[in-house]
């Protein structure tokens, strides 16, 4: 475990430097974002004890995404480590792929954020029965749907076009996951009326709504006080 972590950090630091250069957001850029966001947000951003706040500006948004991807990755790692009874091979293959995508997203944000990243979160999966297909797929659908509404809901706050593109590249994959899980639960249930409105638009959610859902499965509670 320790050795693996050290190896990861080497990758992370190198990757981060190139990411920030690519995105045009060096140290000065981050400072600028912090100032800009503190100008017009009068809401209470005082940290709450024991709660991890994602921070402000684009870094805060990337950390918000990182928090959600940590939760999703941890969930699917457990799903594959302890498959539910009689998991069909096709479902094992699909869920393994999704696990790999979510780990990929998590590691991407970790690498991109480098020292600006929030800490590793501890999940609380005590409410999930990993032996039950119904329980696992139900939570999987909730997480995927939540992820889609989260990216769509926070995207307009993103100030850097490169970050926006990456958020867009990830959210459609989350939507692909959400539709598949919906179909696995009930054939043809990929644009359910609780997720897609009467205009054919996916719903989106404010970070506070998203985190209320996510925190139910996290021991380490997360807030996004800059994005009320």
């Amino acid at each position, binding site marked *: 475990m320790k050795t693996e972590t050290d190896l990861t950090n080497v990758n992370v630091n190198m990757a981060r430097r190139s990411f920030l250069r690519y995105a045009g957001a060096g140290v000065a850029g981050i400072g600028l974002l912090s100032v800009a966001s503190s100008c017009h947000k009068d809401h209470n951003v005082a940290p709450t004890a024991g709660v991890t706040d994602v921070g402000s500006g684009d870094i805060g948004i990337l950390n918000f995404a990182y928090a959600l991807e940590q939760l999703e990755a941890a969930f699917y790692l457990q799903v594959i480590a302890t498959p539910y009874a009689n998991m069909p091979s096709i479902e094992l293959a699909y869920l393994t*792929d999704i696990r790999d*995508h979510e780990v990929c997203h998590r590691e991407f944000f970790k690498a991109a954020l480098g020292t600006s990243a929030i800490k590793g979160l501890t999940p609380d999966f005590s409410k999930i029965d990993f032996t039950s297909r119904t329980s696992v797929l139900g939570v999987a659908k909730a997480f995927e749907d939540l992820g889609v509404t989260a990216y769509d809901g926070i995207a307009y706050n993103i100030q850097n076009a490169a970050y926006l593109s990456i958020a867009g590249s990830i959210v459609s994959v989350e939507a692909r996951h959400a539709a598949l899980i919906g179909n696995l639960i009930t054939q043809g249930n990929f644009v359910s009326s609780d997720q897609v409105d009467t205009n054919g638009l996916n719903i989106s959610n404010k970070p506070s709504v998203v985190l209320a859902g996510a925190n139910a499965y996290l021991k380490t509670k997360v807030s996004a006080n800059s994005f009320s």
Partner: protein
Amino acid sequence: MNLFSIVEEIEKIDPEFNDRISPRRDAIKNITSFGSKVAVAAIPFALGNLFKKAYGQTASASVISVLNFALTLELLEATFYNNGMNASGLVTDTSYIAQIQADENKHVAFLTSAISAAGGTPVTASDFVYLDFTGGSGSMAGPFTGVFTNYQTFLAVAETFEDTGVRAYKGQAPNLLGNQTYLTAALDIHAVEARHASAIRYLRSSKYGATVLPWITSAASGSTDTSGAASNDTGVAAVNANYGGATPENTTVQGGVNILNLPSATSSTTTVAAATAAFDEPLTMAEVLAILVPAFTKPTS
């Protein structure tokens, strides 16, 4: 969306906002009537109308251009599904296709309303010389001949349309940077197109044995795969371009981070399959139009 918190936010930036809108009873009345004509969920655009009237400005030409580009795609998609559902005996999985058809027609109606509300002129079906879903430049005898008589061809074209729609919306997101109303709506449609793409791929795989996954899983390429040959996982070479481009679907470096070098669940590196499937890449407007014009459609002017 909470209208009141938004007005509160605006007042912080523009303390005269209330003064600007309250004396203008005509504007407020018009907004109410606009709101009553469109579905309740179109409120974000009614709000766009509020801004326009309060500040005497229309949405910028670039925003309307993005919306009309999106509407063009939706018109193509809606017509495609309408024709398919109308073709006798073609569609057997109506529980899937009818839902997608309904969504695409809703997108047409929604974008048409939105463009009108923003002061633009929405494109309509009469703005096209032809729509040729065989990809035959109007000959109706292109590579997808039989698209409305052969269900498997229909599904393959549907899959490509949905994947391309996802890429097209994604490519326009940076042009709507910071725009709460239009960016959010565009991304909300984008997510629904991705749901459709996933469902068509799942249907083709689970019921008809096609070797596709719900997500686009590309092969490695030594260089940028502009042709799309390595990025296209559909097995239909005629649609390579839909998966290629300047940022092809098989991209493995995201934002300067080499995904292949990141740790995965079982290894200190990540596979090409996971790295390419975990991210969907954008197509530019020019790339999308080059795919669609003239093979599938031709604008009147």
